[in-house]
């Protein structure tokens, strides 16, 4: 992390960038927050460790409106989102100085707590330097340990790879943490009967409290005014009417981001009710791959997206790829 901080200081000092978008240490071992830094003094709170899961690409929409350049720290998977935002003209490449930061998998505090670990005072092994396989957790109820891999976010188990898709420079090493196939869970659901599928999604989605965290964190959800917030339409509503949550909000959102979702996994990371929202997006990604050939949103800024591009080879409605 020292190398990263020194480089950031240098880039601020020589005015290459006007500000830095990174993470600020929290008051717990696991709650850093996205933050702007403008001076060397500010940077004393800068942190980059295993708990910096937040994808900062979306914050660059606002940062692109500011004067001057913003240095942004992006993990390999975050860079897919940034590319996609360039493609959608929502961020300004010229306003960004991208440091591709190394990533060895990000941690999910809920997975640690699900192991019965509570009263957490400190955690070691989450630092970005070194490669701890085990987290040592000092709690009010004694010393605990937890394997790093078991504490990783779901998305890291299906890591897209250690390469940054866009950057100005790279600092730190990355590791491909995948130990599973991202479509396995989708295939399991596809194999269910319609009744089982309905029961599965009803059970999951009935937990939804319509907090909109999934939408607001989503880099693909960048509409200035979401249809669900507009008082000009009947679709605008905050009521948690269960039938609506199950049938409309998440389904419409999944359709809207289809072909643009990079599978960054932020929706599932932030859901306070642990709804596996990424499953919808992965179903679309899997189908798009089957119908139009393999496509990864955000892998580049030029390729035409299958759902917004017509070719004579496109499959016809009703056909199965």
């Amino acid at each position: 992390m020292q190398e990263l901080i020194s480089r950031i200081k240098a880039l601020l000092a020589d005015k290459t960038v006007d500000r830095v978008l990174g993470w600020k240490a929290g008051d717990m071992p696991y709650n850093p927050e996205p933050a702007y830094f403008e001076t060397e003094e500010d940077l004393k709170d800068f942190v980059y460790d295993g708990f910096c899961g937040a994808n900062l690409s979306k914050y660059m929409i606002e940062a692109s409106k500011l004067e001057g350049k913003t240095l942004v720290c992006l993990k390999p998977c975050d860079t897919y989102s940034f590319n996609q935002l360039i493609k959608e003209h929502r961020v300004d490449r010229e306003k960004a100085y991208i440091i591709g930061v190394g990533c060895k998998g990000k941690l999910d505090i809920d997975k640690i707590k699900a192991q019965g670990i509570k009263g957490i005072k400190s955690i070691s092994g989450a630092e970005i330097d070194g490669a701890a396989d085990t987290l040592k957790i000092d709690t009010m109820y004694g010393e605990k340990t937890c394997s790093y891999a078991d504490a990783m976010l779901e998305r890291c188990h299906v890591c897209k790879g250690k390469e940054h898709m866009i950057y100005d420079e790279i600092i730190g090493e990355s590791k491909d943490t995948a130990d599973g196939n991202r479509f396995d869970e989708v295939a399991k659901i596809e194999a269910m009967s319609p009744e089982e599928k309905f029961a599965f999604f009803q059970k999951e989605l009935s937990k939804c409290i319509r907090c909109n965290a999934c939408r607001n964190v989503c880099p693909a959800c960048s509409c200035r005014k979401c249809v669900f917030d507009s008082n000009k339409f009947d679709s605008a509503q905050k009521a948690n009417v269960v039938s609506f949550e199950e049938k409309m909000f998440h389904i419409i959102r999944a359709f809207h981001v289809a072909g643009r979702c990079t599978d960054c996994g932020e929706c599932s990371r932030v859901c306070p009710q642990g709804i596996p929202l990424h499953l919808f997006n992965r179903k679309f990604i899997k189908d798009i791959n089957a119908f139009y050939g393999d496509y990864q949103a955000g892998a580049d800024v030029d390729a035409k997206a299958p759902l917004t591009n017509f070719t004579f080879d496109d499959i016809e409605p009703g056909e199965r790829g």
Partner: protein
Amino acid sequence: MYKIAKANLPALFRLIAENQELYLPVNTADQVNFAAWTEDAQVDLDKLKTVKSPKDVFFPQSENLYSCVKDGKKISIEPEALKEQNFVVFGMKACDIRGVEVLDKVFLAEPVDSFYKARRDHGTIVAMACHEPEESCFCKVFGIDCADPAADVAAWMIGDELFWKPITEKGEALTKLAESLLENADEAKVEAEKTAIRSIVEQLPYSDLSLEGWNGDVLMDKFNSPVWEELYKPCLACGTCTFVCPTCQCYDIKDYDTGHGIQRYRCWDSCMYSDFTMMAHGNNRTSQMQRFRQRFMHKLVYFPANNGGMYSCVGCGRCVEKCPASLNIVKVVKAFQKQGGSNS
């Protein structure tokens, strides 16, 4: 003081539910929230905090107020019936009970909210002490004793036994209903448990959080502070903090077009949302900074100003655990402390 073996709790729940609705922490798809008891429900009394607070037992996230039905040229108006049946909420923690006291200040003050009052009148609360408080808890800061929660009945889960102490008339009535399953117990184990819980609370990292400088008299100082401009930036403007909170009480009223009339309903609103308190002239908070500031000013300044110094935060720590950007009220209080070394 009474007690009941943990193994007999399903029988207790069945007995209560024969007579009235019973709400308690239930695990559904890996998340624990308050829900109505059923024979198949996976009751989870070990989880310290439910994801959502139990406030929606008294103040549901969405409820109909009345319906208008159009039949030719005639319109009839049907008010929604008020709660008339008794019910029990089992397993509320001390912080959530204080949360209900905060809601009482709002909904039981004139003009009384009849929907809320009907639920309060018909509800019996069985409180549970917090066996092992966690690092995100800071109820002590608000003078709440999670070792000795006060409601209609107070309960302690100690080992394989649940200790049960009726406190109010409603609590005595529920105890009578359950008497075939309860046996007499002495208080020694409960006293030891209380001491153990309190000693854990002393060690919690947020227990010494100082709220000095947060009261109804500092309105303009706090409101105009430049600190907000720094604090709000990571906020995603989602409603997570407000919807998991036991005291957030703002709601919106809307009409749902049924095709042959309307249902007028109210639903929780969130000050984090762009259309919060939107009026015909527009919106009086035009930036996310203003909306973010509203939440904390309401909890720590406006509410105490209007309610004899009572804060409308209870230190449950749900926002601490659930904010997607890791912002929360504790960080806000600490940021003001840090600024200039004082609280103003």
